[in-house]
C-alpha cells in the first residue's frame, strides 16, 4: 500500500486535523515528561480499577467525543445553510454525517451515561466497588480503544460513509470499497465488548452489592434505571455483535449474508441492526430518565411522585423495547400485518413514557423549587422531550411514516429525544454530580448562560427541521437547490447550531473556570440531596464508605438527615479493615492488543490481526493465572482519612 493511500490526503480540513492531532499528542507527551507525570498517569489512572476514576475517564472521553461529533455537526450545518453550497462535496458530506451519528450515539451518549453510572451507582447503593472491578477496567479500555480505532479513520485510510445505520448494499464491498466501513465494523465491535461487560457488571453490582438494608423497592430511581438499562444492554448487544460480525465476514471473507448476489438479503442487515438499534435508544434514554428523577426530586425538595409507577413503567419499557424494531423500516414493505403489529407496539411504548412525564410533573407540583443549573436542564427536558415523543408517535403510524420516513421530520424527532433527553441529562448530571467527582461545583452563573444559549439554540436548530421534513427535504443530502425553498429554515437551523456550539464552549470554559475559582467542597452534600452518594464526605475516600450506611427508604440519606434533626445521635462504631481490589495493568494492555488486532483487520493485514489476537489471548491467560486477592485498608488509614474530612 502506498503511503498516500494510507494517509488521507488532499483535503485542507484533514491536513488541519493532522496538524492539530500531532500538536496535541506532542503537547501531552511533553507535559507528562516535563512535569514527571508518566508514573502518576500509569499507576493512578491507566491501571485503576476504582469505579469513580473509571467513571471520570469515561466522562472525559465522552466530552472529547462530543467535541468531535459537534465539529462534524458544525461542518454539516455550514454546508447546508445556503442552497448549492460548495464547502463540502458529496463524499465528504457522507463521511461526516456517518461519523457524526456513530460517534454521538456509541462513543458519546453511551460512555457519558455509563461514566455517570460508574461514579454514582455504587455510591447510591452503599457499595465499596462494583462486583467485578477488573472487568470494569476492561470495559472502559475496550470502549476507549474502539473509539480511537473508529476515530483515526479520518486521517488514516478514510472514514466510513454509509451512515451510522450502514445499510447494505451501500455499505457493502462494491459500493464502499475503501477501509472506512471496516473501521466502523471493528471499532464498534471492540467497544461493544466493553458495553456488554458493563451490562453484566452493573447488573450484578446492583443486585448483589447493595447495603444489606436496601431492598429492591428502596433503590433510588437512578439505580433502578441503570438496572433496567443493563438488562437491555445484555440482551441487545449480542445482536449487534453478530450483525457486525456478519457484515465483516461479507466484506473481508466473501460470505453472502447481505450481498445482492448468491442469495444474500440486504434487508436482513436492517432487520438485525434495528433489533439492536431500538433497544439502544432506550439504553441511552433510561439512565437519562433516572437522572432527571433524582434531580427533580432533589430540587423540588420532594420525594419522587409515584415511585412504583416509575419502576414498573421502566420494566415494561425494557420488555417492549425488543418488540418494536420494525418501525425503522416500515417502508421496506413487510406487509400489512407486520407493519400493523409493530405500529401498535410502538404506540404502546409511549404509554409508560407518558406515565413518567406525569410523575415528574406531580413531583414538581407544590414543590419548593430551587432553580439550579442542573434543575434548569431537567425542567427544559420535559417540554422538549414531549415534542420529540409526540412526533415519535406520529412516525409510529406506519401509513403516515411513508411520508415522514427519511426526511428532516425524522431527523428532528430523534434529535428532540436524544438531545433534550440524553444530552440534557448528561449536562444536568454533570452539574449535579460534579462536586462528587471533583470536589467543587461548576459555576452557576456560567452554567445558566450556557444553559439558556444551548436550549435556545437547540430549539432554533431542530424545530424548523420538522417543517423542512414536511416540505419534503430528505435527510442525508449534501445540498439542495434554490427552487426547493428550504433556505430560510436552514439558515435558522444553522444559527441555532451555532448557539449550541457556543453553549457547549461556555460549559467547557466553565470546567476550567470552576477548577480555578470555585470554592472547594467541605460537606459532601452541596445540594441538600436525598440519596446515599451524598452521605460520603468530600473528597470521597477510595473505599467510599468507612461504615456501610443504612437504607430505610429510597431517599435513604434524606431519612438519615431527618433522624439527626430529630435528635438521633450517630453512634460511633469502631472501624474495621476494608477489603479492596488491586489495580492492574492487564486491561489497558489487553485493549491495546484489541486495537492492534482491529487495525490489522481493517487493512486485511493478517499478520497484524493474528499478532493482536495472540496478545489478547496472552493477556487473558495471564489474568487466569493471577490469584491476586486485593488488599486491606488498615484501620489507621481509615481513621486518618475520616479525620481530614
Amino acid at each position, binding site marked *: 500500500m502506498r503511503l498516500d493511500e494510507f494517509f488521507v490526503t488532499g483535503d485542507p480540513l484533514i491536513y488541519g486535523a493532522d496538524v492539530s492531532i500531532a500538536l496535541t499528542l506532542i503537547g501531552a507527551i511533553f507535559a507528562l515528561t516535563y512535569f514527571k507525570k508518566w508514573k502518576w498517569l500509569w499507576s493512578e489512572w491507566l491501571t485503576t480499577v476504582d469505579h469513580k476514576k473509571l467513571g471520570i475517564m469515561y466522562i472525559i472521553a465522552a466530552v472529547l467525543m462530543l467535541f468531535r461529533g459537534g465539529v462534524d455537526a458544525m461542518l454539516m450545518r455550514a454546508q447546508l445553510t445556503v442552497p448549492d453550497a460548495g464547502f463540502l462535496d458529496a463524499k465528504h458530506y457522507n463521511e461526516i454525517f456517518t461519523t457524526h451519528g456513530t460517534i454521538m450515539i456509541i462513543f458519546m451518549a453511551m460512555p457519558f451515561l455509563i461514566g455517570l453510572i460508574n461514579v454514582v451507582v455504587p455510591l447510591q447503593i452503599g457499595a465499596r466497588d462494583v462486583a467485578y472491578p477488573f472487568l470494569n477496567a476492561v470495559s472502559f479500555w475496550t470502549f476507549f480503544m474502539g473509539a480511537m480505532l473508529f476515530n483515526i479513520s479520518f486521517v488514516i485510510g478514510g472514514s466510513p460513509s454509509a451512515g451510522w445505520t450502514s445499510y447494505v448494499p451501500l455499505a457493502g464491498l462494491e459500493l464502499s470499497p475503501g477501509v472506512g466501513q471496516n473501521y466502523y465494523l471493528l471499532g464498534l465491535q471492540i467497544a461493544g465488548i466493553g458495553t456488554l461487560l458493563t451490562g453484566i457488571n452493573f447488573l450484578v453490582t446492583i*443486585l*448483589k452489592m447493595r447495603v444489606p438494608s436496601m431492598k429492591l423497592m428502596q433503590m433510588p430511581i437512578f439505580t433502578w434505571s441503570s438496572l433496567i438499562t443493563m*438488562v437491555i444492554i445484555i*440482551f441487545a448487544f449480542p*445482536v449487534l455483535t453478530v450483525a457486525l460480525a456478519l457484515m465483516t465476514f461479507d466484506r473481508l471473507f466473501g460470505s453472502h449474508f447481505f450481498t445482492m448476489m448468491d442469495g444474500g*438479503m440486504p*434487508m*436482513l442487515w436492517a*432487520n*438485525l441492526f434495528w*433489533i439492536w438499534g431500538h433497544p439502544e435508544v432506550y439504553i441511552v434514554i433510561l439512565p437519562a430518565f433516572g437522572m432527571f428523577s433524582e434531580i427533580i426530586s432533589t430540587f423540588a425538595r420532594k420525594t419522587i411522585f409515584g415511585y412504583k409507577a416509575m419502576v414498573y413503567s421502566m420494566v415494561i419499557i425494557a*420488555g417492549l423495547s*425488543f*418488540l418494536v*424494531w*420494525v418501525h425503522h423500516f416500515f417502508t*421496506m*414493505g*413487510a*406487509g400489512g400485518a*407486520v407493519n400493523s403489529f409493530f405500529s401498535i407496539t410502538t404506540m404502546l411504548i409511549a404509554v409508560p413514557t407518558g406515565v413518567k412525564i406525569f410523575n415528574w410533573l406531580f413531583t414538581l407540583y407544590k414543590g419548593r423549587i430551587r432553580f439550579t443549573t442542573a434543575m434548569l436542564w431537567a425542567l427544559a427536558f420535559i417540554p422538549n422531550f414531549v415534542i420529540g415523543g409526540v412526533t415519535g408517535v406520529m412516525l409510529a403510524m406506519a401509513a403516515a411514516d411513508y411520508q415522514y420516513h427519511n426526511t428532516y421530520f425524522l431527523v428532528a424527532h430523534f434529535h428532540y429525544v436524544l438531545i433534550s433527553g440524553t444530552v440534557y441529562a448528561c449536562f444536568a448530571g454533570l452539574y449535579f454530580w460534579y462536586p462528587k467527582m471533583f470536589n467543587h461545583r461548576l459555576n452557576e452563573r456560567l452554567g445558566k448562560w450556557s444553559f439558556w444559549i444551548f436550549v435556545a439554540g437547540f430549539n432554533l436548530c431542530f424545530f424548523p427541521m420538522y417543517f423542512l421534513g414536511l416540505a419534503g427535504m430528505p435527510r442525508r443530502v449534501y445540498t439542495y437547490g434554490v427552487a426547493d425553498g428550504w433556505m430560510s429554515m436552514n439558515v435558522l437551523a444553522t444559527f441555532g447550531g451555532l448557539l449550541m456550539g457556543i453553549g457547549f464552549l461556555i460549559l467547557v470554559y466553565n470546567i476550567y473556570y470552576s477548577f480555578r475559582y470555585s470554592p472547594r467542597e467541605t460537606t459532601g452534600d452541596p445540594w441538600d440531596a436525598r440519596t446515599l452518594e451524598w452521605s460520603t464526605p468530600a473528597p470521597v475516600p477510595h473505599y467510599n464508605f468507612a461504615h456501610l450506611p443504612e437504607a430505610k427508604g429510597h431517599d435513604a440519606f434524606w431519612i438519615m438527615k431527618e433522624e439527626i434533626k430529630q435528635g438521633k445521635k450517630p453512634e460511633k462504631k469502631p472501624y474495621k479493615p476494608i477489603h479492596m481490589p488491586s489495580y492492574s495493568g492487564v486491561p489497558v494492555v489487553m485493549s491495546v492488543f484489541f486495537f492492534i488486532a482491529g487495525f490489522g483487520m481493517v487493512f486485511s493485514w493478517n499478520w497484524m490481526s493474528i499478532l493482536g489476537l495472540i496478545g489478547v489471548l496472552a493477556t487473558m491467560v495471564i489474568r487466569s493465572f493471577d490469584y491476586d486477592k486485593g488488599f486491606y485498608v488498615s484501620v489507621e488509614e481509615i481513621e486518618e482519612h475520616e479525620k481530614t474530612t
Partner: protein
Amino acid sequence: MASNNEQTNSHSHFPWSHVVGFGLSIVLTLLALWIGFYSGFSLTTIMVIVVGLALVQATIQLLMFMHITESEDSTVQVGTILYAVFIAVAVVAGTIWVMSFGMHYM
C-alpha cells in the same frame, strides 16, 4: 443456601440425576430423529414437535446438569434464562416473520 437441593449435599451418593438426565437426553434425541424420518407427519408438525423436544432437553440440561436452581441466586439465574428465551423467541420468530416477505421474490 444449599439447603434446598440434594445435588449440593450429595456427598458420595451415586449421581442419579446426571445418569437420568443423560438417559433422557439420549432418548429425546433418538425420538426427535425418529419423528423426523419415520413418523410421516407434515414438515410443520415435525418441526413443532422436534423443537418442543429440544426445549425439553435444554431444560433437562439446565436443571439436572447445570443445577440452575441450586444457589441462593437461583431466582435471578432462572429469570435471566427465561428472559433470554423471550428474547430468543422474539428475535427468531420476529425475524422470520418480518423477512418472510422476501420469499415471494425468490
